[in-house]
Structure formats: C-alpha cells, structure tokens
C-alpha cells in the first residue's frame, strides 16, 4: 500500500473519530442543559434582592427532559414558566430569597449531619411556614447545598401516603408538596457549585448516578456577578 493511501486512511479514521466524539460531546451538552438563567433583580431600599423560585421533582418528565424519569430541580423564569436550568446568575452583595416547592418523597441522607441547616439567615428555614434549624435526616428528600458558601438546606419529603402526588414535572402547586423558604446573602463575585446531597437518583448505583452526576438536574452553579 502506498504511503499516500495510508495517510489518507489515517486521516479518514481521525476524522470519523472526531465526528463521533463531537456527537458524544453534543449529546452530553444537550442532556446537561447547562445554559445559565439570569434571575431578575429588584431593588428594595437600595438593596439588591432576588426571588428565586425552584421546584424539586421525582421525575423531570418528557416536556423538559430527554430523561423523563430523572429526578430534577426546575427554576421558575420571570414569565412564570418552569424550566430545567440549574446554572443561575445572581448579583453580588444581594439578598437571595429562595422558595422551593418539593414534590418528591423522602430518601434520607447518607450523612445525618446534613439535616442541619446552615448558611442562611439564622441558620434556619421556613418549612411549611414553620421556622426550623434542621429536619429529621431520614425525612430529607433533597438538599440544596453550596459548600463554598456554607449553605446547606435539606428539603422535607412528601409523605408516601400523600394524596394527589405529582407524576411528571413541571408540577402544579395543587399537587402534594412541601414548601421550604430560606434567605441567604451573596457577597463577592464568584463561581460556586451547588448540589444535592441526598442519594436520590432512583435506579442508579448507590442512588448517585445519572441526574446526580449531570449538570441540569441535581447539580448546578451559582454565577455571582458584580
């Protein structure tokens, strides 16, 4: 075989491999849905305030995901639409009011210590209107944690025997849910990851595969910008 033909074959093989890698990377990116959502900011008494509304669901559903059975976070955009976006742009030196509507049942934490709330005003949260500084870790459904900011809030799970449970996201508030509200404050600009600490990925080894390892479901980033 001539050298020219060999080179051509090698080039063709490299090109094919490159295209396949490109398809794979595109699929990963597409699945991850890592686009950033800029949360609207309002000014109250000269201070920047953000209202971040999220919901945590047992199944993302076919409307917002190619993996309808994956557990997921969703964020409510300014026009009221729930979207599966977990990279959030937040202002620096601002007050962030978070409301989570949790529609999922309890899985329990691996580390019971993470049932303790930290990093929020008073190291507390309002769970269905009641101020508490922890929940029973075995009743935790999900966790919103930003380790670099010291934030750790466990979300109470919907009881197994609750009526009118939500099937697929986006879940309407008329279905069974728990409401968790808390407030934290951003300071300097930075890029902070957040994640769930409950092994809630049903069907995956140790409950920690798939949505727990994919940005756009149970993990994301806070882009705190000046």
């Amino acid at each position: 075989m001539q050298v020219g033909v060999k080179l051509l074959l090698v080039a063709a093989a490299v090109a094919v491999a490159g295209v396949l890698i490109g398809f794979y990377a595109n699929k990963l990116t597409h699945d991850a849905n890592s686009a950033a959502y800029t949360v609207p900011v309002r000014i109250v008494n000269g201070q920047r305030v953000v209202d971040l509304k999220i919901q945590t669901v047992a199944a993302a559903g076919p409307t917002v995901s190619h993996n309808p059975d994956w557990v997921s976070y969703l964020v409510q955009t300014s026009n009221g639409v729930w979207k599966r976006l977990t990279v959030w742009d937040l202002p620096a030196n601002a007050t962030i009011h978070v409301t989570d509507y949790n529609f999922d049942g309890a899985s329990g934490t691996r580390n019971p210590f993470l049932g303790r709330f930290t990093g929020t005003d008073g190291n507390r949260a309002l769970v269905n209107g009641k101020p508490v500084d922890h929940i029973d870790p075995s009743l935790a459904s999900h966790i919103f944690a930003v380790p670099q900011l010291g934030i750790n809030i466990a979300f109470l799970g919907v009881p197994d025997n609750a009526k009118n449970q939500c099937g697929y996201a986006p879940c309407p508030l008329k279905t069974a849910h728990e409401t968790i509200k808390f407030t934290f404050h951003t300071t300097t600009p930075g890029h902070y990851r957040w994640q769930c600490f409950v092994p809630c990925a049903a069907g995956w080894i140790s409950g920690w595969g798939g949505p727990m390892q994919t940005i756009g479901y149970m993990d994301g980033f806070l882009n705190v910008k000046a």
Partner: protein
Amino acid sequence: MASQPTAATPPRDSVNHGLRFVVAWLVLSVIATPLVVIFVGPILPPGNMTTQAHEQIYDNTWLAAVSTPVLCLVVVFLVYAFVYFRAPKGGALVDGPPLREHAGIQVVWIVITSVTVLMLAAFGTYQLLQNGSGGGQGPSPVAVPAGASHNLAVQVIGQQWEWTFRYPSFGGVETHELVLPQHTSVTLHVTSLDVVHSFWAYQLGVKADANPGTDNVAYVQTRGPGTFQIRCAELCGLFHGYMFSTGRVVSATQFQSWAKTQEAIYKTIAKYVPPYAKTYICPAAGTSPTCSPQPTLRGG
C-alpha cells in the same frame, strides 16, 4: 595507490572530550548543588505549618540536591555537544566514530544509578518510619509517633462532594470546617461515606486515601497558625474538582471557642447522628450498632 578517507571512519579528534566533559560537569555540580540547597531548599513546598510539612521540605531539599548533578550532566552534555560537535558552516556532514561497547562505562553507569536510587529508597523509608510523614497508614499504623495515644483525634469524612470532620473529644461534633489548634499532635482518622476519595491537605503535608468502611490513620503535628487548602486527590465524580475547602490552624484558645460554637450548632442534629466510630459506615451490614446504614441501601 593513494589512500582515500572514508566517511565511515573519520579521523579521531586529538582532544580528550570525555575528560573535558567530566571536569566541566564536576565543576558545575560542585557549584550548583550547594546553591540549590541554600537558596532553593527553603522555598520548596509544602511549607512549615506542621512538623510533617517541615520535614517534607527537608526531604524535597535532599531530592533537589541529588537531582542537581543529574541536571548538570544533561545541561553540560547539551552545551558541550552544541559547541564542539557542531558541523562547520558549509562543511560536509560526516558521521562520528562508531560507538563500541565499553565495560567500564557500563559498570560505572549501573553502579552510580543503582546507588542513587537505592540511597533515595533507603532515605525515604527511614523518613516514612519516623512518623509516617503525614501519609495515611491504614487502620494499623506502623510509624506511630511517641505519645500518639494522647493526640487530638479528628475524623475526616469524604463524601461526594464535600469533606466533613468529627471531633470525638468534643462529643463527636461534626463540622463542615477543619480547625486545628496550633502546637498540637493530631491523629486523623480518614474515611469515606461512599466512594474512594483522598484527603489532601497540602500545606499540612498530609495525604491519605478515604476508603468507605476503612479507618486510614495519619499523624500530624501542627506548628504556627495559618490557613490551608483541603482537596480531594482521587477522581470521585462530577464535582471532584470542586471538592475543596479551607482549614485553619488557630491558637488553643480560639480552638476551644470555635469547638464550643460548633457544639452548640451541632446540638440540634446530634440525636440523629450515629455515635462516633472509627468508620462512618459498617464494614458489613449489621456488624456494629454504632454504624450508619450502608449507603448502597439508601439510593432512590
């Protein structure tokens, strides 16, 4: 018949290049090695925050001292070859004399490299056996520092993707932050809740694998106050690269105050946390009443 020079057997150079080269190398090594020890040694990592880290600077200085002549050898060879064996401009390219086996050179080469490597192995082993050099020694440590039974015990727990810490001498309080008192001997019990992690506190000179169900013991003696970085050094999933935090070495008074605050914060969750044990999960399900359930049973 007139003889004709052939390219295969060029005339030998009358200069003794070997001797020149060896002299140049020896002179450079004798000058460079003390300079490296004196000026580079003190700024080598990982710092002086602990005795172990300080000793590692000593080890790294030794390694630098041993490797300096090797570096000099390469540099001198390169420069010498550039200067003396460069083809003259416009001149014909001729091959050098053929290389022949030389038993003496081979023996010297093997002896020098073997002695160097064995010496470093012996030096490293000796250093490791002194106090473990900040490395994880498994559940049955061999290099136990004197008086280690009186050390401050701290459990280091790796989980995807955060480090938490328990202090058995403070009621088993668990914290998100690692704080140590200065001038204190500490025994770290490194373990994991899920997959294999590696606890790497660079400035402390400590690195120990965190295996689920295993108590990996490492010793460290703190010195002056300061902050240090904690990282995971074992690829452990999506946010492995974000599994870092900052620890502190503080005065004894500050440590006591911090520990009391942590105990107060921890109090409300304490009843849900299992009693302190050497590992955070059971080696086998149901083998100990003080273990948490197996994480594999908690998924979904």
